[in-house]
Each structure stands twice: as structure tokens, then as C-alpha cells.
């Protein structure tokens, strides 16, 4: 159904559980009819436009256990309802995992970061305007992609991994978490499971209507950052049309372990080029043991875009991605 913006919220039930058990019970009971609400930055537009019509919202922000940054035995755990501003300013995150602090600090705008949460940023839905407009595209359960057509506006869309849908992962923090080898903690009334950040995001080839590994009734409750990449050498860069309140055209998150100018190990991930954060394992392999140089950086940059399939209006992303990889490796 094509969107009609009422600019008001629909009549909807609001649950505000104060403890984990109640929230998980509500999530299990309501299933897909229960919309998980945290900062609300990916909620109110959907509901006001009537493009998503859940019967209830489950607000998660009153559950203390799912908020804040704390040390755990092998690293740091961040509650999923911790705001992006809190993450960007947290001393522990800044001192050990500055990459995530940097990524969180450039999400959208200060106002959005003040209420927007890590969980919301990671779980936000695709930002393709055809989808957001309410058209019945593949991602909305339809049988066509409006963005990937001769007239389709696809400047911001995918270079890689498109399978019918060409939308990209819009999250700024997601590539940082993939680079940091984070672990996602998923809770449900049946217990808890963990998923590597790299596997948490799901492409349209495997699931065209959901962007994450969350199943019905599950909630992302925390993200764990292992000490293995704490205080590594970080590189983060986001290129967007505007410096604030904009999604990345391409972003890069990279972590390096170096000895002098030699790269001993690395993890590199790009955002906004695929429906999931795109980890560049071929680049990581190619630069392992190499000394940083212009030649190595250029070669890695070109390697990064192998297999890219630009759409009509996003060819510019290829050199943009190459240059970001080059800059990250050059340091």
C-alpha cells in the first residue's frame, strides 16, 4: 500500500516492561504484532505512514539490564538500549574501542544520537525510498524491485550481494562491530544465544524481508566487544552527502594490528555497499604481513571492489570505496 502520511501515531497498544522477563514474554506472545521500540527513530515514520501496522509497541528503554557499558571477562558489553551519544562519549569505549565511539558519533544528528540506541541503529530497516514509500517491492513481500529498473533512482544502493532487492545496510555502527569482531547477544523467552556480528546481518539472498538474524520473539539485548581487538589501530571514515543527518554513501571500518609499518593482522568492513556490512576478507589476506605503502594500499583498494555490480546511478561508489580502503590501509 502506498504511504499516506497521517503525521500522527495510529491507535496502538504500548507496553513498557520494566524487567527482562516481562519484555521477553511480551515479545514471545505478540510475535510480529509486537513492534520493539527503543529510541523510536526507525519506528514513528513507519507507523505514522501506516506502512507497518503492528498492533502493539514494546518499549525496551526502561529495562536497566539492557542499558549501559560494562566490563566482562573477555571484553566489554554494551546494552542494546544504550544511546549512541552514551557510546560515543563512554570512557571505556573511547579508550579501548575508539572505532565504535567514532562510528556512533557520526550517526545522523546530535538530537537523533541522544535518543537513538545501538540496538535501533543495528536493527533499523532498509532505507530504500521505494520501500519506505510503501510500495509493494520484494522487501515488502512483493515481486518487483523499483530501485533496480531503468528509471529507478539507485544512487545510494548496493554494489554487491543484490538478490532482487538492492537496498544497503544503513547502519554506521554495524561495520564497526563487524571489524571489531563483536558478538551479538540475542534473548528470547527460550533463553539466550550469541551470533557473531558478521553473521547477524542477513542479505536478501537468504531473507528478503528481514535484515538480521533475529527470529520472531527475539530481542537483541547486548553487544560484546572482545579484548582481542582492543586498542588496535583503528580507521573509520564515512562519506555522505551531508556531514550530519545523513546515511553513508560508503563507510569503512578497519582495525589493524601492526608491528612497525608491517600489518600483522586486520579486519576491514565497508558499509552502504551491500545489504550487510561487507567484510573485505580478500583485502585482509592480501595485506597480512605487508608493509604499509602506497602500492599496497592501491592494490588493496582495487581488490576491494572485485565483483562489484554497479546499478545505473551508483558507479561512483566503486572509486569511492577503493579510495576509502586505500586511505584506511595507508593510515
Amino acid at each position: 500500500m502506498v504511504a499516506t502520511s497521517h503525521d500522527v501515531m495510529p491507535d496502538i497498544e504500548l507496553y513498557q516492561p520494566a524487567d527482562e522477563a516481562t519484555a521477553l514474554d511480551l515479545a514471545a506472545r505478540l510475535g510480529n504484532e509486537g513492534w520493539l521500540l527503543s529510541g523510536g527513530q526507525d519506528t514513528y515514520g513507519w507507523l505514522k505512514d501506516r506502512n507497518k501496522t503492528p498492533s502493539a509497541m514494546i518499549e525496551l528503554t526502561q529495562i536497566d539490564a539492557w542499558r549501559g557499558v560494562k566490563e566482562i571477562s573477555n571484553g566489554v558489553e554494551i546494552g542494546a538500549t544504550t544511546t549512541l551519544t552514551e557510546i560515543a562519549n563512554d570512557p571505556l569505549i573511547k579508550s579501548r574501542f575508539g572505532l565504535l565511539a567514532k562510528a556512533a558519533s557520526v550517526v545522523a544528528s546530535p538530537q537523533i544520537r541522544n535518543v537513538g540506541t545501538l540496538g535501533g541503529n543495528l536493527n533499523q530497516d532498509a532505507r530504500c525510498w521505494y520501500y519506505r514509500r510503501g510500495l509493494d517491492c520484494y522487501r515488502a513481500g512483493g515481486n518487483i524491485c523499483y530501485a533496480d529498473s531503468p528509471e529507478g533512482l539507485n544512487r545510494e544502493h548496493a554494489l554487491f550481494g543484490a538478490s532482487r532487492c538492492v537496498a544497503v545496510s544503513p547502519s554506521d555502527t554495524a561495520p564497526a562491530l563487524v571489524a571489531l569482531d563483536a558478538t551479538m547477544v540475542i534473548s528470547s523467552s527460550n533463553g539466550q544465544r550469541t551470533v557473531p556480528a558478521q553473521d547477524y546481518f542477513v542479505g536478501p539472498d537468504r531473507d528478503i524481508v528481514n535484515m538480521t538474524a533475529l527470529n520472531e520473539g527475539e530481542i537483541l539485548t547486548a553487544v560484546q566487544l572482545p579484548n582481542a581487538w582492543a586498542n588496535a589501530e583503528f580507521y573509520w571514515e564515512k562519506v555522505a552527502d551531508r556531514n550530519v543527518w545523513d546515511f553513508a554513501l560508503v563507510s569503512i571500518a578497519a582495525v589493524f594490528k601492526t608491528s612497525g609499518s608491517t600489518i600483522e593482522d586486520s579486519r576491514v568492513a565497508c558499509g552502504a555497499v551491500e545489504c550487510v556490512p561487507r567484510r573485505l576478507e580478500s583485502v585482509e589476506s592480501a595485506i597480512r604481513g605487508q608493509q604499509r605503502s602506497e602500492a599496497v594500499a592501491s592494490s588493496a583498494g582495487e581488490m576491494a571492489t572485485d565483483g562489484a555490480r554497479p546499478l545505473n546511478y551508483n558507479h561512483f561508489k566503486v572509486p569511492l570505496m577503493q579510495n576509502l580502503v586505500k586511505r584506511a590501509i595507508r593510515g
Partner: protein
Amino acid sequence: MGEIVRYKRDVWGEEVILGVSWDLLYVVFMAIIVLLVAHAIVMAALAKKNLERPTAEGRKVVRHESVDRWFHWLMAASILALIFTGVSPILGLRIAWLDLHWMSGLLLTFLVVAHIIRASFWQDFKSMLLVPKDFGEPFDSSRKPGKYYFEQKGMHWAVTVVTLAVIVTGVLMFMQIDTPFWDRTNSMAEDQLGLVFLLHGLSTLALVALAATHIYFALRPEKIYYTRSMISGWMSEDELAANHDPGQWSPKEAD
């Protein structure tokens, strides 16, 4: 539940067909289970009345050439792969199904075309023709068929029609996605695309029902030698004499 066709709004806001309602998959599944279980119960009740089964011993005759058996099993594998990959997203399985689906579809298309050519020029095409007098065969126990009996012909032609429908609509859908051979054009109007999706979905449901029925009857003990002949190629002269009219079908002796 309750709907057969799903609709959507196209880009102009007009209501157009989106495809088949996949609730029907569960309806078809349950209906097939009920029918086959009922058949199994009836057959078990009638089992004592059955005559002695023909023996597999003795001289053997050729029922299926090696090339035809390969065609059959490759077609079976590709159809099962198509069904599995096609229904996996409907069942909520998160696998990269689409590439496997169209690859299986291409294989099936090639096999079907090759089979049609071979059946038209190198096989006894008439032996599979379903003519009016065949419809009396199930009601007359004294009549013996040629190479294929009525139910086998019926199954073959039902599968043929449904498979051709799946292939034609599948090829049209294949042209709407990116492949190594071309980039999609999204050139088909949304109402036409919806009709193609609907026909593909309906023929898929029919294919699921036919495949389940075919597998069930292939595993029935009283006719298991037909399945054996599709594996080994032969049936015994006793089995031939018990079930077929040598006047209409006189196969050569097996090696």
C-alpha cells in the same frame, strides 16, 4: 487463510495480482497426506484379496533404456530441488535459494526439451498417448495395457502439463532477475508479472501434489517392480505377463 490469490497496489496505486496465496501450500500438503493415508488404509484392507504377485525371477525384458532412466532421475532430482528451494523461503528457511532454484530450473528445462525430442523421434510416442478407450481400463480387470497403464499415462501427462507451466512461467520470471547471462530490465508490467507469479505458484502447488503422489505410488509394494525397472531397467517376463498385453507391447530381452 481463505484466499487463493494475493493482490497488491502497483506503482500507480492500481490493484494488481501479486501471486498465489502460500497458505494453499499447507492446504495442498494436508490434502495429499489425507488422501494418501486413506489410500494406504484401503489398500491394506484389501491386501488379502490380492492375487499372488508375479515373481522377479526368470527371464528379463527391457522396460526402460539407460538413457531414459537417466532422464527420469535427473528430472526427478531437479524437480525436487526446485520444490525445496522454492518453498524454503515460504517455510522460513534462511538459505540462499534463488541461484539454486534457477539453476535447477535450467537443468529441468534442458532435460524436458531433450526428452520431448527423444520421445518424438526415437521412442514409441504412441505408447504414452492417452486415448478414450484407456479410460475404461481401470474398471475392467480383464483388460491389460501396453507398456503403460492408464494411471501411469495420466500421471505422466499431468506432470507434463504442470511441468511445462512451471517452466514457461519460470523462464519469464527468470528474465526478471539478474543472472550471469543478463541484467534484469524490469520490463514486464506489474499486472502481467503478477499473473506469471500466480500461474507459477499454482503450477508449483500442483507439482508438489503430483510429486508426493508419484513418490507414494512408486513406493507401494504391489507395484514396486516398476520402480525397480526405473533403477535397473528390466522387469521379469512373469511381471510382464501379469500386467501387460504382449500384443500391445513386446519388449526385447534384457542382457
